[in-house]
């Protein structure tokens, strides 16, 4: 089977997220909360259009994929996250990149986002 040629693929943006939380949430909990918050803001249609995908999550750092035109919608959804299981949480976008590699290299090892 042939793979989809690069020209036909959807363009992507990768958002590097910093998570500040009272507890360590699991990957599934975080993804569920993220999807729920975007869906309650822009609806299921908006969520499906954004092409959201959680690629990496380790409790304090996460990488999320979406399509370039919807980055602001995803940002708003991320900003609307307030708690996971009654524990307060704040998520911030540290930066945006075009590849997973660039985002990881640029933002993952940055030491200035340790927990307060």
């Amino acid at each position, binding site marked *: 089977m042939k793979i989809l040629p690069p020209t036909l693929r959807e363009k992507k943006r990768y958002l590097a997220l910093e998570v*500040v939380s*009272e507890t360590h949430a699991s990957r599934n909990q975080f993804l569920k909360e993220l999807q729920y918050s975007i869906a*309650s*803001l822009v609806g299921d249609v908006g969520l499906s259009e954004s092409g959201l995908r959680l690629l990496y999550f380790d409790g304090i750092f996460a990488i999320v994929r979406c399509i370039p035109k919807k980055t*602001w*919608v995803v*940002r*708003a959804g*991320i*900003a*609307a996250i*307030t708690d996971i299981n009654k524990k*307060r*949480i*704040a998520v*911030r*976008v540290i930066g945006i990149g075009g590849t997973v590699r660039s985002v990881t290299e640029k933002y993952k090892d940055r030491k*200035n*986002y340790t927990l*307060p």
Partner: protein
Amino acid sequence: MKNACYIYELKALRNCNVSVFTKKPLYEIHVKPESGQSLEQMAVIAKRYGYAGMIVTTDACKPERTDAMPSDFLLYHSAELNAQSATQVRKKAQLLHGKTDCIILRGGSETVNRAGVENRLIDILSSPGNINHVLAKLASNNNVAIEFDLGAIIHTEGSERCRVLSVYRNNLKLVRKYNVPFGITTTPISCYDFRAPREMAALAMLFGMKREEAVYAMSVVPRQIIEQRSPNFITAGVKLV
């Protein structure tokens, strides 16, 4: 002072090559630390999120700088007014005038909103509900900023969030029409309630605000308010050096 600079500032923001968010220092205008929340921690978080300063609302005296605070982080003090009637607004504003950097009135009812925008001593009218063209015109003449509380969008859901968004959409329309200064804030009570400037803009875009306007609301408006209330201020464009 009519806000003639509004259009000029927006144009300047739009025409810059770099990101609009890095061009000017940004401020969080309505920080209300809950009991038990240390101000240093909030300052550290705000600084990391990219703010140059914040206006802290406390009942007591001015917040003191400690060593734990980031050195180049600006801290201003404001007083929040809660009033039930127009006379109360006038009296309390008169009492607080000159003692703080900025006076924030918590609006809501028709009479309080009206008294707030008619009073030149009030700087920010917070959570006014639906404003109308009369209030907007008065606010513009008296230079009272209308606050958009994005915390209301973050912390609510469903029908209530829908109502908040429609109120803000209506307010934004009038604010644009009459050149009223406006500010955006999340009213953080703890360090988990801060949002970075770009996220604030993204939330503001939900009710139709442009990115440049969001930056204007976070940088130019707070700057103006603080300058207006500084002891060296004489009149618009004139200050004691």
